């Protein structure tokens, strides 16, 4: 079956959503939409046995065959895992949204169309094997995410958040496109699999590091890594189902997917490992540290997501170490990729449920401000239970799945200290230390989230609504996810066999030929080793700090606001807008004289530099004719006329001098034996002088003041420059004639072929009559234009249209 078309199922289904919304008002549209992810989930689940044995499925259709662009769906362990997450969590989120969004007050047709669009985009991202189609779907996730964040488009904050996330993710997406283009140039293929196969050759290519950095920029912006994480907290203005789906479980993991997918291509490089692991770990520390500063439930979760994504990112970076170590499959280095995928699954389960919990609390109490909440434990017992499971798993407490992946994370980070490439032996110790500090803060904010919402004193007078337990439908999805959190703890190895090992085999094909080779067994108790002591330390120190939280949390308020990255972003946007405005105001003066100065200035610079850079300036007097007496006399008259125009005090004198110049030119035509030109020049000069006089006669009285043309040095320099330039060009052009003239042909054939005697006229009407045809057309247009300008007076009809 060509499952590539299944990618498009959600977006096709979205076509019917508005119809269903308008025609079936009594049924919540979400129920119809729910069918799509469920069907897809079931279908993808049937592929599990194939990938668990290391099988791969490819399905494609040609899109632009002449450019070698196709949409290729490639399913291996990694993409299947993501597809299952997308459709599975997608189904739960749709179910949750049915109860979360009111069918009478909300514009559900918009919501579900965007959501389905997003689902197609995500499925496309994770299944694409073709770089260009991957990029296509990647941008579609940015666009649909933009639409979803701005879903309540009447709110300022929503629009701000949507724009911010759009700017940052599209910036990254474009960088990634650049990386992809470089990759396809290096490898001469668009297929990721083929690129991975030739990874060692690619590494020596000069584009390699560029491609690496550019692709990573795409991954970092999408996955909210430092310093690009700033869009994620602002994206919390989206409806909570969207936050749960996009900003915890799926879209932000697109960057992780990208890193995992390209690990076989880039793992050769130490830059890759350092960047991915370093940025990831720092993001983890930074996000967990600032999560405690947040007052908003979803704000805490947003920073927690940033932190957890950083954790997974650092593990993916560490998994590249396996490439550089002999026999890594049997050493401590093998844990990183496994831990990354394991934590990715765990994070999707507990973070999805926590977002839904935050949504329930918001929905039932009317606020998400953690300072107003408290004591909801007895009022909302089920929600509390779910929140507790999610938070404890996030904190890494047993018996929840977060505990297992946290242990493996510590193992992987500790293993990096034994790695001795790329100056890792010097700096490697930083990794477990930062990881440990980050984990401590994770522990604190997890407890902060659950206990400050549900424990303590209930403050009913601060809440906009009277708090009560959520309807059962809203609780189903988070409860199911919380159940998964528990279940995964007890059957980690089944999850490992079916989901994680195939994915690990896809990330580290240089270590494992088949998923069965991944030799990792997860156990809840792994003996007394450094990880055990680190975990114990996390619990103890974290617990102690949480106990004294109220005393030191105020320290966060001391952080200067204008040193934050958000402020940096705002200033950047503000300054780039203002700067661009100021820059264009600087040169777009609105005066034609300024624009003429630019044009002539550039003309001089470009032509002169070309003339001298290409050594084109030559003066040869060999072919020139002798200068006669009459030429000199007329030339002097012409120069005198020109100078008179420039220094004349009265416009009238300038007009007459211009006429003198024109008649001198006519005399030149006589001397140089061009009677037709002389005739025409005389008549035309007469007419144009008459027209000038007419224009002068109609000048308004107050502008007829006799005033000499003011002298401006800049203008003089430009004018001199243009004159010198054109003189030099004319001299050089005259001095180096490459080809003989074709006029001999005209001379010979004017009578025999064209039946005429006046070469000029025969050229005009016969040899090159085409030009004449259009010149008389130009004349006709000019005549009609003058009639229009003079006869047609519309200027008094003003104020009818704003844009006029």
């Amino acid at each position, binding site marked *: 079956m060509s499952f590539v078309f299944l990618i498009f199922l959600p977006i096709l289904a979205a076509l019917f959503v508005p119809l269903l919304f308008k025609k079936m008002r009594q049924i919540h549209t979400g129920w119809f939409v729910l069918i799509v992810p469920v069907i897809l989930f079931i279908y993808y689940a049937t592929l599990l046995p194939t990938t668990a044995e290391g099988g791969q499925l490819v399905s494609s259709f040609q899109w632009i065959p002449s450019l070698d662009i196709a949409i290729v769906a490639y399913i291996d362990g990694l993409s299947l895992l993501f597809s299952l997450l997308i459709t599975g969590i997608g189904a739960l989120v749709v179910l949750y949204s049915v109860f979360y969004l009111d069918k009478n007050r909300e514009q559900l047709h918009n919501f579900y169309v965007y959501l389905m669009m997003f689902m197609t985009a995500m499925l496309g991202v994770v299944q694409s094997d073709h770089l260009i189609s991957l990029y296509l779907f990647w941008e579609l996730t940015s666009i649909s995410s933009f639409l979803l964040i701005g879903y309540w488009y009447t709110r300022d904050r929503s629009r701000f958040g949507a724009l911010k996330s759009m700017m940052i993710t599209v910036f990254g997406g474009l960088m990634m496109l650049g990386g992809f283009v470089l990759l396809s140039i290096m490898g001469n293929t668009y297929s990721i699999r083929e690129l991975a196969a030739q990874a060692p050759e690619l590494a020596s290519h000069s584009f390699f590091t560029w491609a690496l950095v550019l692709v990573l920029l795409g991954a970092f912006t999408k996955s909210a890594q430092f310093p690009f994480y700033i869009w994620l907290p602002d994206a919390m203005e989206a409806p909570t189902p969207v936050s749960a789906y996009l900003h915890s479980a799926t879209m932000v993991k697109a960057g992780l997917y990208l890193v995992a997918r390209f690990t076989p291509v880039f793992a050769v490089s130490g830059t890759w490992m350092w960047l991915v692991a370093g940025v990831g770990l720092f993001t983890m520390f930074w996000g967990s540290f600032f999560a405690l500063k947040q007052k908003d439930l979803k704000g805490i979760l947003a920073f927690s997501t940033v932190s957890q994504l950083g954790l997974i990112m650092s593990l993916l970076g560490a998994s590249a170490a396996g490439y550089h170590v002999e026999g890594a499959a049997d050493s401590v280095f093998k844990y990183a990729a496994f831990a990354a995928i394991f934590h990715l699954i765990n994070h999707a389960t507990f973070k999805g449920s926590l977002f839904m919990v935050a949504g329930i609390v918001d929905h039932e109490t009317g606020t998400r401000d953690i300072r107003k909440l408290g004591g909801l434990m007895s009022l909302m017992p089920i929600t509390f239970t779910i929140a507790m499971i999610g938070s404890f798993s996030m904190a890494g407490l047993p018996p929840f799945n977060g505990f297992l992946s946290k242990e493996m994370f510590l193992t992987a980070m500790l293993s990096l200290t034994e790695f001795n490439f790329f100056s890792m032996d010097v700096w490697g110790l930083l990794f477990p230390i930062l990881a440990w500090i980050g984990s401590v803060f994770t522990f604190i904010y997890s407890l902060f989230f659950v206990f400050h919402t549900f424990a303590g004193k209930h403050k009913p007078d601060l809440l906009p609504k009277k708090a009560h337990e959520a309807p059962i439908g809203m609780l189903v999805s988070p409860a199911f996810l919380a159940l998964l959190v528990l279940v995964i703890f007890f059957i980690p190895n089944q999850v490992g066999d079916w989901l994680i090992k195939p994915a690990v085999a896809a990330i580290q094909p240089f270590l494992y030929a088949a998923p069965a080779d991944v030799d990792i067994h997860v156990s809840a108790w792994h003996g007394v080793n450094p990880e055990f002591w680190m975990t114990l330390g996390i619990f103890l120190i974290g617990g102690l700090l949480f106990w004294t939280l109220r005393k030191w949390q105020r320290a966060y308020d001391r952080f200067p606001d204008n040193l934050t990255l958000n402020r940096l972003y705002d200033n950047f946007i503000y300054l780039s807008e203002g700067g661009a405005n100021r820059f264009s105001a600087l040169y777009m003066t609105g005066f034609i004289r300024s624009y003429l100065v630019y044009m002539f200035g550039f003309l001089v610079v470009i032509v002169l530099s070309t003339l001298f850079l290409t050594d084109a300036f030559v003066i040869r007097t060999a072919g020139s004719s002798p200068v006669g007496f009459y030429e000199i006399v007329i030339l002097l008259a012409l120069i005198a006329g020109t100078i008179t125009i420039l220094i004349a005090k009265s416009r009238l004198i300038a007009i007459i001098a211009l006429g003198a110049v024109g008649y001198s030119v006519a005399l030149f035509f006589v001397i140089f034996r061009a009677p037709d030109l002389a005739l025409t020049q005389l008549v035309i000069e007469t007419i144009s002088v008459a027209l000038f006089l007419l224009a002068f006669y109609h000048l308004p009285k107050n502008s007829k003041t006799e005033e000499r043309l003011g002298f401006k040095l800049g203008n003089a320099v430009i004018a001199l420059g243009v004159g010198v330039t054109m003189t030099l060009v004319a001299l050089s052009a005259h001095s180096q004639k490459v080809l003989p003239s074709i006029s001999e042909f005209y001379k010979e054939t004017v009578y025999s072929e064209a039946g005429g005697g006046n070469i000029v*006229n025969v050229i005009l009407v016969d040899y090159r009559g085409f030009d004449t045809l259009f010149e008389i057309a130009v004349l*006709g247009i*000019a005549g009609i234009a003058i009639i229009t300008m003079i006869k047609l007076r519309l200027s008094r009809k003003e104020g009818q249209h704003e844009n006029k």
Partner: protein
Amino acid sequence: MRTNDVMLQTATKVVTFIILMFAVHIFFAGHYTPGGGFVGGLLTASAIVLLMLAFDIETVKKIIPFNYVMMTAIGLLLALATAGASIFFNVPFFTHAYDYFYLPLFGKTSLHSAALFDLGVYLVVVGVTMTIIQTIGEDE
């Protein structure tokens, strides 16, 4: 009150015809000696302008009741038709034809389709020049 311009008007009546004849001459002579449709047209227009100077626009309009915009259009069409006619004889666009004919009164005469094209140019030049001058002259 107008000054007495009898001399101007009388001279104009004679000179206009001389100019017009010269214009026609220069138009027809264009293929062999200097001249052609463009200069011929300009000279014709200057003859009419002279009339306008000596009399006034309304009088000249009565004497020469041409619609100059229409004249421009006819000139353009004539030029285009001359150029386009060649394609009906299965030769490329803008191929001219000429031959010698024995005409009564003229004797052996060479007739050239380029003259028709030049006539188009002539009409356009006269039409446009007169349009411009008339329009500006009538403007308040």
